[in-house]
């Protein structure tokens, strides 16, 4: 019988194969969703999304790309922003 608290879908289920060729279900916290571009909602690359407790302990340089708007905009939107800025500055 599954424990009643594990019957809800709050936790994700992972099937783990044990050395004795026995499969068991492990219950783990769900991961946070992938970071999205502020402008076009595309998935951002270079931003890990482990559990918050792990993410908090990562170094700052591992949390987002080292460019302006890194972690906020995708590269396409960032470049479009600066191309527009360069053309306006004439």
């Amino acid at each position, binding site marked *: 019988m599954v424990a009643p608290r594990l019957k809800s879908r709050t936790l994700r289920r*992972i099937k783990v194969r044990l050395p004795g060729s026995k499969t068991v279900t492990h219950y*783990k916290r769900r991961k946070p969703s992938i970071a999205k571009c502020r402008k076009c909602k595309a998935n951002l690359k270079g931003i*890990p999304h*482990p*559990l918050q407790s*792990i993410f908090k*302990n*990562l*170094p700052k340089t*591992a949390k987002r790309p*080292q*460019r*302006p708007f890194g972690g906020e905009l995708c*590269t396409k939107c*960032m*470049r479009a922003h*600066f*191309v527009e*800025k*360069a*053309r306006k*500055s*004439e």
Partner: protein
Amino acid sequence: MVMDIGSIVMKTAGRDAGKRAAIIEIEGNMALIDGETRRRKTNLAHLEPTGQKVDLKKSASHDDVKKALESLKITVRDTKPKTAGERPKKVRKAKENPVEAPAKKATKKTADTEEKEAKPDAKAPAEKKAAPKKPRKKNNGIRQKS
């Protein structure tokens, strides 16, 4: 707009994105730029012309670029040459005075009850266990599974 030697461009990609610089050299699809960015080679596709222009010779020096960009109020980035400093020397901690230790024990023994004196062996291993502490591993890598 054509990008030539001396034209002011804005970098639109990478860590220097949004910074203005002057083109110094063009070779194929690569350009050498200097200005707010580091003096560096870049792909021409990563540059956007701003329409301004400065008088510069081909492969002009950093100081020439600095003078030319003063009129446009562009602050040129200076890279400091690295100088090898002295290595920090490791200083070993001085050992605690061996003279003081027995003196403390003696005072304790007199103060403590006889029971504690009877078990000197039990205390010693506990202290030994506490001594070797391994440094905690930093979790810099990202755990994928958890």
